[in-house]
């Protein structure tokens, strides 16, 4: 009997497994599912786990990937509020949240069909929002005037509103501008403007450099002049000191003014007749006064 009960247990287990395979289906974390009864979508499943169903052909399960998929629209041209042509490309992260709504809406839950619809919605919303803003709202150094985030949010809000009215079982997770551009002919104008900006920069750099160099040189010259002036003043002061000290010695000469005078005159004569001089003298000039009395003219005297 023991062996028989083991056989029974194994048999029961096999039946159980077979029944499980027939009546139970799993929905993964990454999926949402809809159960149709004779083709009519009845049950919506949006949480992972095991679920029961009647076997085919009574009920059928359609599963959809509920994870976020990224979709981008075309790089299209639109007019901004200040009549600039601006090329924009938007990407959107969307996912299927409600399989029961999604399934009948797009022929058997076709994702490409959903993307085609999204593309239409996106281009409408994009055109409408871009037309409400100036070009300066897309690019601006001033964070107050830059409306990049706002534009993205507005496009998203508009697409979401349209999805709600259409009731598609789709949710937008995120939306952003992927690419911005200008029409080909406009780029040429932009290049011309940029070139002239560069030229302004070049001349500014040149002038600035020269002005600054001039300033540096002028400062140096002034400093040099100041230094020299200070040195001159110092030199004068020093020489003055010397003269003052020399003056202290003057009383020595004052003791005998006649002698001092005589000595000075002697010095002066010696100095003045030092080089290449011509001296004309008569007998009265010493020591030639010796000629006078004793020699040639003695008689005539």
């Amino acid at each position, binding site marked *: 009997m023991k062996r028989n009960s083991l056989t029974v247990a194994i048999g029961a287990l096999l039946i159980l497994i077979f029944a499980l395979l027939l009546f139970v*289906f799993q929905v993964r974390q990454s999926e949402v599912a809809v159960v149709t009864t004779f083709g009519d979508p009845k049950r919506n499943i949006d949480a992972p786990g095991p679920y029961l169903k009647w076997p085919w052909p009574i009920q059928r399960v359609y599963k959809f990937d509920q994870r976020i998929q990224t979709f981008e629209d075309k790089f299209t041209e639109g007019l901004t509020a200040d009549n600039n042509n601006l090329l924009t490309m938007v990407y959107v992260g969307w996912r299927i949240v409600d399989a029961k709504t999604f399934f009948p809406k797009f022929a058997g839950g076709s994702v490409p069909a959903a993307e085609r619809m999204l593309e239409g919605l996106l281009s409408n919303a994009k055109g409408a929002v871009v037309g409400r803003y100036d070009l300066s709202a*897309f690019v601006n150094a001033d964070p107050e005037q830059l409306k990049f985030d706002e534009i993205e949010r507005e496009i998203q809000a508009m697409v979401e509103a349209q999805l709600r009215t259409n009731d598609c079982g789709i949710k937008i997770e995120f939306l952003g501008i*992927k690419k911005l551009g200008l029409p080909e002919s406009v780029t040429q104008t932009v290049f011309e403007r940029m070139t002239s900006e*560069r030229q302004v920069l070049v001349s500014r750099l040149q002038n600035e450099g020269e002005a600054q160099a001039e300033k540096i040189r002028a400062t140096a010259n002034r400093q040099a002049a100041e230094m020299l002036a200070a040195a001159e003043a*110092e030199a004068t002061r*020093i020489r003055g000191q010397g003269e003052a000290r020399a003056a202290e010695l003057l009383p020595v000469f004052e003791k005998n003014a006649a*002698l001092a005078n005589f000595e000075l005159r002697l010095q002066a004569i010696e100095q003045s007749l030092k080089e290449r001089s011509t001296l004309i003298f008569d007998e009265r*000039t010493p020591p030639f006064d010796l000629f006078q009395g004793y020699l040639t003219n003695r008689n005539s005297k």
Partner: protein
Amino acid sequence: MNPNPDSLPPPAAHPGAVDAGSQALAEALRSSFAVVRFVMVILVAVFLGSGFFIVGPEEKGIKLRFGKPVGEGDRALLGPGLHWSFPYPIDEVIRVPITELQSLRSTVGWYAVTPEQELAGTEPDAPPGTPLNPAVDSYVLTADGNIAHSRATLHYRFDDPLRCVFGFTGGTNGDFTLAGVSNAVLNTLNNALLQAAAQFTVDQMLTRDVVGFQEAVRRHFVQLAQARNLGITVEQCEVQSRPPRQLKQAFDDVINAGLRRSKVLNDAISTANQVTNRASSEAAARVNGALAARTRYVETVGAEAKRFEDLQTQFARNPDLYIQQRLVETMSRVLTNVQEKIHLPERADGRPRELRLLLNREPVTPKTQPASP
């Protein structure tokens, strides 16, 4: 398929009362039961054995129990090796190729370049005056409405692999890969690059605030990634920017002007240094000269004074004699130095003589004197 062993007559229950026919039947039944039992055991063994699976290198396994991943965060990931799970429909195993560090490069903002050019580091030709075709070359618009090329390279790792795997899909076939999250990351990176460029002027982006721009791209990206719960962490974000190729000359001119400017400035500084150095040495020389002159003057006057005192005693002894003596002595010294000496004897009548002089300092080249007769 499911024979009930209980309904069978117990084999060999009545020994002796069994005929040959029923015995043969029992024998046949018993052997077929043995086969069925064997098959059942095999089935169960196969069922349980099918739970073994191998996770290969460079991939991770995730066990789903009734559709939900078993374990949280990194613990849900099974590394390479042999693992076991309950067979379907209880458990299900998915394999995800995961590498440690991911790298992505933004797909907007750069001009069209072939992989060969990219490797060689060259750029396609664009002569000045050609417009940018938005279908071919991509670029970013800067805050001052200008055009620049810029691209970001992002290195990141998957922080929350479950979010990455179960949050994003790469295709329509429900595969479990990271292509979906990579696509979302790439679009977010492009988005962040545009947002950052929209706030920076072309000069800030290219020269004045390159690091700031890179930081801004990273900041925008991190913000967006968090808001979208991409489940990744950014390791590094490098941004490369270029002026449009068409304007290369114009941009180079600015760089050259900057270089020339610093050269002019350096020249000025070196001239200034020369001037001040020369002035300071000149000043020192003047002061030193004055010091020397002072010393010399004071010394000289001192010596004179000393000499004068000596002379004074001589003078006091006999002034006349002294004067005569000094005068003659000096005159003799002076006269040796005098070049021309003209003695003018007094006329007999005592009247002064008249003398005419041709004043010419320059020495007259002496003419050959005619021989006097």
